[in-house]
């Protein structure tokens, strides 16, 4: 039972590291944003796992049910999802503009172009 209980945390740590690595190491700006999104989503999973009460059901009032999962983390994550979408769309908009200005979205080529101009 305990190993099942920790499964969520393992999964979100693995996702978190994949996301963090992609966001830092990938030179492609879109891939970086994908990594960033995976990183954020792993945190959503973390919060939702925190809200789980073992044996608890969805927090809707019903007769005969005493144990409910904690709904507060879900609500917090609704906010965080909105923030995540805003960040992703702003990031993608920036990438479009960068693509127009530099004709590439590879970080190393952009740095090269900037160095030439200096």
């Amino acid at each position: 039972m305990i190993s099942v209980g920790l499964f969520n945390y393992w999964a979100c740590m693995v996702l978190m590291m994949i996301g963090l690595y992609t966001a830092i190491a990938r030179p492609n700006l879109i891939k970086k944003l994908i990594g960033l999104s995976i990183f954020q989503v792993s945190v959503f999973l973390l919060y939702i796992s925190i809200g789980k009460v073992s044996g608890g059901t969805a927090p809707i009032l019903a007769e005969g049910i005493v144990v409910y999962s904690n709904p507060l983390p879900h609500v917090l994550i609704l906010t965080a999802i909105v923030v995540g979408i805003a960040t992703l769309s702003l990031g993608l908009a920036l990438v479009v503009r960068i693509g127009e200005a530099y004709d590439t979205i590879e970080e190393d080529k952009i740095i090269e172009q900037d160095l030439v101009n200096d």
Partner: protein
Amino acid sequence: MIDMHLPILLIVVPLVSAPLCVLLRQKTLVWAFASLVCVASLGMASMLLIRVLEEGVISYAIGGWIAPWGIEYRVDTINAFVLLLVSIIAAVLMFFALPSVADEISGKQHYLFYTAYLLCFTGLMGIAITGDAFNVFVFLEISSLSSYTLIALGRDRRALTASYQYLIMGTLGATFIVIGIGLMYMMTGTLNMFDLSERLPAMFETRTAMVAFAFLTVGMLIKLAMFPMHMWLPNAYCYAPSLVTAFLAATATKVSIYVFLRFTFTVWGTEFVFEKLNLDAFLIPLSLIGIYVASLSAIYQTNVKRLLAYSSVAQIGYMMLGIGFVSVTGLTGGIVHLFNHALMKAALFLSVGSAVLRLGSSDLADWKGLGRRMPVTMAAFVLAGLSLIGVPLTVGFISKWYLILAALEAGWWPIALLALLSSLLAVIYVWRVVEVAYFQKADDDSNVQEAPLMMQISMWILTGATLYFGIQTDLTVSVAQRAAGLLLGVTP
């Protein structure tokens, strides 16, 4: 009646005004409206500080939901001070905005610019006022997202990459903060800061608490651009529009430092952070290295905006150094420097912005003979530059004085000596600009006009403030001392 609701009005007024800017659309009208909002916020923030100094902590339960269940806005001396600082800067910059935005932002985007400006302002005020840990994150993202937009509006295409880089780093930092807050919630079941501070001590031995603290601290240090996590800052400040650079340099990192103070001192408490985990053994060396590395980098810059951006990283080092002493004098120094640095950096970036308006460039090579061509602007630059160095009778001296006093109080004279010596580096990088502007002849003899009056008003209010608060230290120092005492739990 209105008095009762001051804390929430301070957030709601700019928040609701931001979308109204989109509806107004007309350039001058939007500017006038945004200025009005900023001035009104300044009025409310000053009323709030006066009330806090008279009555003590003000707690406001949003929607009538009592804390810790509802979101609480909790105003004490420290955040009232930060709120006042942010609203002063936002309001004073509005004079500068009219000519500067007309020059740097395309006419069709003016109303969107002011919308983003007001949203950024709302976010920063929100971070400072809230007493709820998750609410901090929400406001942090409101201010960050709008500041990415503002930075991307710079004319150079490198503004786009700078903004993108800041977006990646900023989001990573903010997400680290959310992880930390989530783990804190996991251990205590509460998000209210005051409630957290009471429940956390029972959890100090657990590994989850330590991990929560680690994530939170790294996230905050990225956001406040502590060396070596400052890589996003120089480019962002360098390529952003002049007004945005001045606004962000004066407020964004300062508010992040406030968040750091709030979490380390109020929520976690000095006992856990500094006695058990010895964070000061990590903060003090990093601050000192940061001061030296960033100052040395500043010396070698060929662009004045970038030079000042590196100097900002160094100045953040001084603030963190003061915090690292964990004494009333050290914290007073840190908090006073937070206020003083905001004034002088805003003044410096505004004088650079005026020069950019007339010359179209912030490259040092183009600044030859500027002292003769734009004497008023350069005079402001020199005065604020003296403050950056820490010359007596300027605000910079006051904050350095308290920092060195704190080092000596703790018996760490080598640190006092290092902090003093680092001022010499500031002398070098300020002198480089002064030398080019005053002692080199301009390449062409074309006449350059002095900056428009509106710009000079903003510039001289801030430059005047660096001198005024350098001589009249009662207000800033006494408020900072009360705030420091409050953070350390010495005074109620």
